[in-house]
């Protein structure tokens, strides 16, 4: 066992023997990474030291300043580049910094030049090619008993090529837990596990998949993935980091769109340009809040233009990362050193957003709010009717104003009035001075007190008029007048504009069709998801794959450029990209096909022999085991403790957090008022996200900071994480709730423990586990019998008939909630 473990540890100390067979040189695989890594920084888009640029063939074949030729096609011995990389003179040898190229690298360059020095288009920008490389092998793999779907044929044929066998299916309990964690982020109920394990019908698995995809909680899981990319948060970000009390409405838009399975192309268009759609709905306008998630700087003395430009840059770069998998941010200050992306092109993309302003838009409140407002309104109308009726009656009894009152006065009435009033009445209306008018008005008021009271009652009620069903939300809208001309900015400085540019696609990608002189933001959004653009669908299916397998087919989801990883299964990636379109961009259908594959269903048990051959499991000879995300850890723990409030949507909530954490934000301006009742136990994605003081439980488990887009979370495994799971109040409460749940069922200690394991791990208990836990239970019980006051301290112990039992069980069951098996999806 230790040997297996060490296999991975030792790997990088082993000598590296590259195994390049004599297959023809593949530029993208063999040459481009080498050029990118060792040459392009000085001989690339921006720099042409010695007159050499190696990013394009035409450039690379030019004569150098020295008169020599860097590359002579078919003639390595005449190619200066080879002379320089293999020179023994350190002053001449390239690259000037770092180790010299290895013999293997030089051999590759040599063969490349003799084979014609082809510069193939980078794989990610080529049109999709969903055909298997070897159709025969693919067909055979598809017919293999192991395979269920075309996905499997791609994976299995690759495994065959490597001489590796795939893994068997995971056990049913593992499968159902995996599906629940992946699709809902919630644990399966023990009854569901039993039913699935005992269900022998051929479509048992499929039915679970369909049920989960139809669950509203699906969006809470998959919406969170998208919110990472949207850098969604509930506050401004910079310094004062003011709250954004309506930000959650965008979050709820995402959840709704995902539950309704809004096709990804429409999902894209709505968020990038919903405001520009013909007769766009308020929901489509709300969707544009995707790009309102940028940070806002309201520090004193800021130049608003500086921070507006910063936000537009963030929009540009987020677009690049999320939809194009490109690190366009590098070109903000200068042309990209590695990818063919110039400084000017960055600002062409930037130009699409440069006339998009943050504006307010009125959107309908949620159905819940509207129902509640309607009830308020009903009450209001009823109340108003009562006072209005009363007023009407009084109006019949009393004169409506001073003039009417005066006219109504009979002589005997006048005599009862005070002397100054009588005197005022004697003055002709037009000649009365202000004092007299005032006196008469007061007299009128006094004489008609019931009427005035009724009037007041009406105006008091009217003040309580319920709010509108609409609410103002910050979104993005196109600027109609004073439109800005975009300029290249020197080193990205907003005060240093260079020449002007217009919105346009990147040269490496197809151009953006436009109905007018220049493409609009809407045309950009449509182009991203058009058939002509191969990159976006590749990038997007890679995201989906990553969430279901723990790593993408391209291991660098944020970099599909030349320095990023190449796909392990390029044709599978293209097949999926193409398939996503065929499925009309249905996220649910795409996920369904993926999880139905045998590749997904494989066991994740590590195979010792693979530790040497494929330690990172790139060839997918098994599923991957990985820790679940921050929010899911909390959700599954609370769920097992019977505490999770499954209410969906609405304003963000404030689960327990130490006050010092909020205090690190600016000038103690932020107070964390812990939510009460069910809101204390809502799912993690509803936790209020304050950018300068994010919730530590989320951050300890690698929730992104929401300041920039994130397409790949870390999965750290730290002592702070351990302390959180062990000691944090939420997890302690979950353990106590779990104990209560177990104690509510009848049975022996052993039966109850077995039941607990089933609830927590979705599988049957093993005897050795039970024995280990029984021992702990006995010791805990003995401890609390001897120290009943400690038992009383257990959080929810009060009110329980038997605090000693509860404490003993809680302190035993928290071990289950800390198991690696519990914290991973497998």
């Amino acid at each position: 066992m230790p040997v297996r473990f060490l296999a991975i540890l030792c790997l990088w100390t082993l000598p590296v023997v590259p195994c390049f067979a004599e297959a023809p040189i593949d530029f993208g695989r063999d040459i481009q990474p080498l050029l990118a890594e060792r040459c392009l920084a000085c001989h690339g888009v921006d720099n042409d030291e010695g007159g050499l640029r190696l990013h394009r063939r035409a450039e690379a074949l030019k004569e150098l300043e020295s008169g020599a030729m860097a590359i002579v096609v078919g003639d390595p011995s005449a190619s200066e580049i080879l002379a320089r990389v293999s020179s023994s003179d350190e002053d001449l040898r390239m690259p000037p910094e770092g180790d010299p190229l290895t013999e293997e690298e030089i051999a590759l360059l040599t063969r490349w030049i003799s084979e014609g020095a082809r510069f193939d288009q980078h794989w990610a920008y080529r049109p999709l090619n969903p055909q298997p490389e070897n159709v025969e092998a693919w067909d055979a793999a598809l017919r293999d008993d192991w395979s269920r779907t075309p996905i499997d044929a791609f994976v299995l044929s690759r495994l065959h090529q490597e001489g590796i066998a795939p893994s068997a299916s995971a056990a049913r309990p593992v499968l159902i837990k995996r599906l629940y964690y992946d699709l809902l982020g919630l644990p399966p109920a023990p009854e569901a596990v039993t039913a699935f394990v005992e269900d022998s019908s051929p479509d048992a698995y499929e039915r679970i998949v369909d049920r989960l995809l139809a669950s509203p909680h699906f969006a809470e899981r998959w919406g969170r993935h998208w919110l990472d990319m949207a850098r969604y948060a509930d506050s401004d970000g910079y310094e004062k980091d003011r709250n954004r009390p309506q930000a959650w409405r965008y979050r709820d838009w995402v959840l709704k769109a995902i539950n309704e399975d809004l096709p990804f192309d429409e999902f894209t268009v709505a968020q990038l340009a919903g405001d520009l759609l013909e007769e766009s709905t308020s929901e489509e306008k709300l969707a544009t809040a995707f790009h309102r998630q940028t940070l806002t700087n309201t520090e004193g003395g800021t130049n608003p233009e500086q921070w507006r430009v910063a936000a537009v840059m963030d929009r540009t770069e987020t677009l690049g990362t999320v939809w194009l998998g490109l690190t366009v941010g590098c070109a903000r200050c200068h042309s990209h050193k590695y990818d063919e992306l110039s400084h000017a092109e960055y600002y062409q993309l930037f130009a699409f957003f440069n006339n998009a302003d943050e504006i307010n838009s009125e959107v309908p409140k949620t159905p819940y709010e509207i129902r509640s407002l309607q009830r308020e309104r009903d009450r209001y109308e009823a109340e108003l009717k009562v006072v209005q009726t009363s007023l009407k009656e009084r109006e019949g009894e009393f004169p409506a104003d001073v003039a009417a009152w005066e006219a109504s006065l009979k002589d005997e009435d006048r005599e009862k009035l005070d002397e100054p009033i009588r005197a005022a009445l004697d003055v002709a209306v037009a000649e009365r001075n202000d004092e007299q008018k005032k006196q008469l008005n007061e007299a009128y008021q006094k004489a008609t007190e019931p009427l005035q009271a009724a009037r007041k009652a009406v105006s008091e009620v009217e003040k309580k008029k319920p709010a509108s069903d609409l609410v103002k939300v910050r979104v993005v809208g196109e600027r109609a007048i004073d439109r800005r001309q975009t300029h290249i900015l020197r080193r990205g400085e907003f005060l240093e504009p260079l020449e002007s540019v217009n919105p346009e696609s990147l040269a490496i990608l197809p151009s953006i069709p436009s109905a007018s002189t220049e493409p609009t933001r809407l045309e950009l959004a449509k182009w991203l998801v058009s058939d002509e653009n191969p990159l976006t669908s590749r990038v997007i299916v890679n995201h989906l794959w990553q969430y279901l397998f723990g790593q993408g087919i391209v291991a660098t989801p944020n970099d599909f450029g030349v320095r990023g990883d190449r796909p392990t299964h390029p044709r599978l990636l293209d097949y999926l990209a193409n398939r996503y379109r065929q499925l009309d961009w249905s996220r649910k259908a795409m996920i369904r096909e993926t999880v139905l594959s045998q590749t997904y269903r494989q066991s994740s048990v590590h195979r010792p022999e693979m530790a040497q051959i494929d330690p990172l499991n790139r060839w997918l000879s098994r599923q991957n085991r990985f820790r679940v995300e921050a929010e899911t850890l909390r959700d599954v723990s609370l769920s097992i403790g019977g505490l999770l409030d499954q209410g969906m949507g609405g304003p963000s909530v404030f689960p327990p957090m130490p006050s010092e954490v909020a205090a690190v934000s600016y000038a103690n301006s932020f107070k964390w008022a812990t939510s009460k009742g069910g809101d204390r136990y809502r799912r993690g994605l509803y936790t209020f996200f304050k950018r300068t003081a994010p919730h530590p439980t989320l951050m300890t488990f690698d929730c992104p900071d929401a300041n920039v887009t994130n397409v790949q979370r870390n999965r750290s495994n730290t002592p702070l994480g351990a302390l959180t799971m062990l000691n944090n109040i939420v997890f302690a409460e979950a353990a106590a709730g779990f104990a209560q749940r177990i104690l509510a069922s009848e049975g022996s200690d052993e039966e109850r423990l077995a039941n607990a394991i089933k609830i927590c791990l979705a599988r049957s208990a093993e005897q050795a586990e039970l024995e280990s836990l029984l021992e702990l239970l006995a010791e805990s019980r003995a401890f609390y019998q001897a120290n009943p006051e400690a038992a009383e301290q257990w959080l929810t112990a009060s009110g329980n008939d038997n605090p000693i039992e509860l404490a003993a069980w809680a302190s035993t069951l928290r071990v289950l909630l800390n198991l690696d098996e519990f914290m991973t999806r497998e």
Partner: protein
Amino acid sequence: MNPYEQIQRTRREFFNTSASGLGGVALSSMLAQNGLLESADAAENAEQQGPMQVQPPNTAPRAKSCIFFFMAGAPSQVDLFDPKPVLNERNGQSLPKGVLDRARFAFIQPDSATLLGTKRKFSKYGESGMEFSDLLPHLSGCADDLLMIRSMTSEEFNHHPGQLLMQCGVSRFGMPTMGSWITYGLGSESENLPGYVVLSSGRGSSGGATLYQSGFLPTSYSGVLFRNSGEPVLNLTTPAGVPPELQSRALGTLRDLNQRRFQEVHDPEIASRIASYELAGRMQSAAPDLIDLNQETQATLDDYGIGRSDPDTSARGSSGNKDTYDSFARNCLLARRMVERGVRFINVIHASWDHHSNLDNEIKFNAGMADKPMAALIRDLKQRGLLDDTLVVWGTEFGRTPLGENRGGRSANTGRDHHPFAFSMFMAGGGFKQGMTYGATDDIGWDVVENPVHVNDFHATLLHAFGLDHKKLTYRFQGRDFRLTDVAGKVITDWLA
């Protein structure tokens, strides 16, 4: 990806997810203890694993630990460190036109702004004759131990962006902070405390938690906030009703069950998780011991000023917190105790130096808070032989204007505006020259006229002190090799002792 890269990646991914925050040596012995590693070779190999495994530097290091005082808000250099007699002479005059034209201000109305002299009295101290204002009677006593830099420059003149620049080397979100880079580069020598710790006094800073986040580096390299009250580290104490002995018992069962699982599925990640839990258990006893100041002599407590109450609270300004003096003094002493225990980087944040008005009173209050305990810390480290390899820094995001702030509606100019063009910082220990004043500003303290030091240069030199080459300490993210010094920075060799 070529095989070499793949191997690099393996290592990185393993770092990313393996037990962390603590020493790799500890990890290997732990694994050996648990029967996860059986041979000596195996233990040696595992030593390469943890993210906090001590890594060899590029060159011989001068410093092993850093205590970085981040005086957020920007203290006024012309009232503390950089005497400007000409500024006093020209009090009330306007700024020369040429200077004014290229300046940007946060609040100052340029047309009517006038120079504001200082009311402070400057003197020379020590054999070096380093100058300090009368606000720092204790620190000035350490003059011959300090390297004073009067020529710092920045290009950010709003707080949060400026603070990001000082902590991350680039004014952008999502970047690692100094402490993250250094622990990433060198690991930590502490076996049961985090390698990168954050202490905070007074109110929160503009940057909040973004000033100690690890950005794209793994979370293991984030600063861990030590709290001022209650448990020193979040979630350190066992839940109510679970005494430590029962916790250890439960951890024992947890380890057994995790080990069983490991034997079934062979995932090394499980071994990492076991180690994380073991180390968490050790932290539970090490951290309370760390903060137990009863172990210190009364003389030490007095030197640091532990237990001092805030003097004239009316001068604290509207934004200060109660008991800041005591809290800051405690943080200074805690910092020393952390250095003794091998913590690599301690970021001490204090946030209330943004004196747009009421400068004279508020800076006096703050200087009084910082002066005595920081001086005691430097003396204490020196006495214990720790100053040679411990770097103490007084840092900030930018300086303050020699102009008085005439924000609209103010009757009197009693404060100064943001000033990125020239500011002062100082350092002690860590193998830097002592008693040296480096760089100079012009007569009124507006521009640097001698030896300008950009924030990137400062970082390059800081890394150099730790034996790290700022151009080699890189992390590949989104296809680019990022550095603390972004695309600039040069080591200032004049500072090296």
